[in-house]
C-alpha cells in the first residue's frame, strides 16, 4: 500500500483480480449448494432411497431433534474436548520431545528407529490394549488421539529444526552462542513455519484419533453417534454427525490458518 494513486492500468488489474476472487467464492458455495439441492431433490422424488442416503432436510430435522433433546451440544462437546485435549498434548509434548532430540545427537540416534517404527504402526492396533489399560472413558480416547498425532508432530518439528540455515548456525557459533541461546534466538523462530504446518497436520490427525477412539470405546460423542447410528440403521443420525464433524474440523483448520496469517505477516 505504498502508493494510492494507481495508474488506470493498475486499477484495472486490481479490479480484474477482485472480480476473479468473488467469482471463485461464488462458485465454491454454489457447488456446495448444488450438491445439497440435487441430493434433496433426488431423495424427495425417491430417485435414491432416503432411508439409506438420508437427505439435507432429514439431516436438519435430526439435528433439530438432537438439539431439543439436549444431546447435540453434549455430543459435540465431548468429541471437541477429546480432540482439543489430544491435539494440545500431542503438539506440546511432541514439541518438547523434538527439542530434546535436537539438543543431543546421541539421543536422537538412539530414538530414531523407535520413532520410525511407531510412525508406521497403525495405531488402531493398540485399541484393545488401550481399553484394558485406560478403561472406556474419555481418557482412553484422548490417549488414542495423542498417539495418533504425536509421532508426526515430533518428526515434523524435528525436521524443521534440522533444516535451519547452516550459515545462520555458523554465525551463532562464531558469536559463541550457547545451545540454549541458539535454540531460543535461532532454531525456534526460524522453524515457526514448520510449526504452523505441524499444527495443520495435527488437527487432521487429532480428529482421526478421537473419532477412531470413539469407534472402539465410548458412550458419547460424534463418533459414538456414527457407530450407534450405523448399528441401528439410522442413517440420518450417521449423516448428521458426519456433517457436524466436517464443520468442526473445517472450523479448527480455519482457526489455525488465521493464526498463521497473524504470525507470518
Amino acid at each position, binding site marked *: 500500500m505504498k502508493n494510492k494513486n494507481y495508474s488506470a492500468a493498475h486499477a484495472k488489474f486490481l479490479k480484474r483480480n477482485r472480480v476473479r476472487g468473488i467469482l471463485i467464492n461464488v462458485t465454491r458455495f454454489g457447488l456446495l449448494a448444488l450438491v445439497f439441492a440435487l441430493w434433496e431433490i433426488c431423495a424427495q422424488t425417491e430417485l435414491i432411497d432416503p432411508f439409506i442416503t438420508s437427505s439435507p432436510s432429514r439431516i436438519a430435522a435430526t439435528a433439530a431433534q438432537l438439539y431439543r433433546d439436549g444431546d447435540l451440544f453434549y455430543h459435540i462437546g465431548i468429541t471437541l474436548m477429546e480432540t482439543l485435549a489430544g491435539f494440545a498434548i500431542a503438539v506440546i509434548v511432541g514439541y518438547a520431545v523434538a527439542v530434546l532430540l535436537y539438543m543431543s545427537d546421541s539421543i536422537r540416534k538412539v530414538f530414531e528407529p523407535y520413532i520410525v517404527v511407531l510412525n508406521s504402526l497403525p495405531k488402531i492396533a493398540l485399541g484393545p490394549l488401550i481399553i484394558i489399560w485406560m478403561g472406556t472413558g474419555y481418557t482412553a480416547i484422548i490417549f488414542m488421539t495423542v498417539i495418533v498425532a504425536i509421532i508426526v508432530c515430533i518428526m515434523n518439528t524435528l525436521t524443521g529444526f534440522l533444516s535451519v540455515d547452516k550459515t545462520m548456525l555458523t554465525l551463532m557459533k562464531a558469536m*559463541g552462542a550457547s545451545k540454549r541461546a541458539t535454540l531460543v*534466538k535461532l532454531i525456534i*523462530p526460524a522453524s515457526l513455519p514448520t510449526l504452523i504446518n505441524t499444527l495443520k497436520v495435527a488437527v487432521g490427525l487429532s480428529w482421526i484419533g478421537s473419532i477412531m477412539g470413539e469407534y472402539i470405546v465410548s458412550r458419547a460423542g460424534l463418533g459414538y453417534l456414527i457407530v450407534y447410528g450405523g448399528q441401528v440403521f439410522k442413517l440420518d443420525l450417521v449423516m448428521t454427525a458426519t456433517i457436524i464433524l466436517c464443520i468442526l474440523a473445517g472450523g479448527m483448520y480455519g482457526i489455525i490458518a488465521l493464526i498463521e496469517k497473524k504470525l507470518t505477516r
Partner: protein
Amino acid sequence: MILRFEDVGYTYHTLDGETEALKGLNFGISRGQFVSVIGPSGCGKSTILSLAAGLLTPSEGKVVRENAEFGYMLQRDALFPWRTVEANLFLPLEVKGKNTRMMRENALNLAEKYGLKDFLKKKPAELSGGMRQRVALIRTLAAQPDILLLDEPFSALDYQTRLEVCDDVQGIIKSEHKTALLVTHDISEAIALSDKVIVLSSRPAHVLAEHEIDFGGNNPKHRRECGQFAATFEKLREELGL
C-alpha cells in the same frame, strides 16, 4: 601482534579418512592491519579463520591471540529474516550478554553513521544485496570486536555490487580502526583491500609468500588505478601457479 600463527597444523577427521588442511603455517597480524589470505580453492582458508576465532583447536603448533574480541563475517549475510534490521544488529549483543543500553546505542550510532538509519525498522528482505552485507558488517561491529574475520564476504554478490560493497566494507573497517583478516580466492580483491597479502600453497597449506602492499594509499579505488596493481596481480598469480 594481535594474532600469530606459530607452526600451526590442522587435520580434519572424517569417516572416510583424514585430511591434512594446514601444516607448518606461520604468519602474524599487527593491530589495525588489514590482512588477506589467498590460496587455491579448498586449501583450508576458512579453517584458518575458525582457528583464529578459537572455534577449532590446532592439531599442531599454536595460535597466539592477544586478549581480543573476534567478530565473524560470513559468505552470506545470514541476517535473520524474521527480525528487523535493528533487531539483527542487536543479535550479537543478546548472544554475548552485552545487551546494555550503551552497547545498543553504540550499534545504532554505527548504523546511523553508515547510512542504515532509514532501514532500521525494515526487514532484511526489503534491502538490496549490498545493503544487507553492510548490515551484516555493522552487526559484526556492534559487539565491538578488535579483529574482524571475513570469510569471502563478497563472493555471493554479483560483480557490480561486489566492487561497491568491498570498497564500502574496507572503508568502514579502516575508519573504525579495526584489524581484519580476510580470506578470499579473488586476487584483485586481496590487492585492493589489504595492507598485507599472504599467499598459501595448496593442501596442506603453508605460507608461500607475504607481500606488503602500500601503493595507492588506503583507497581500493586508487589502488586499482595504479600501475603497480597489474604487476602485483601477475606476481601473485604466478605464485599461486595459475
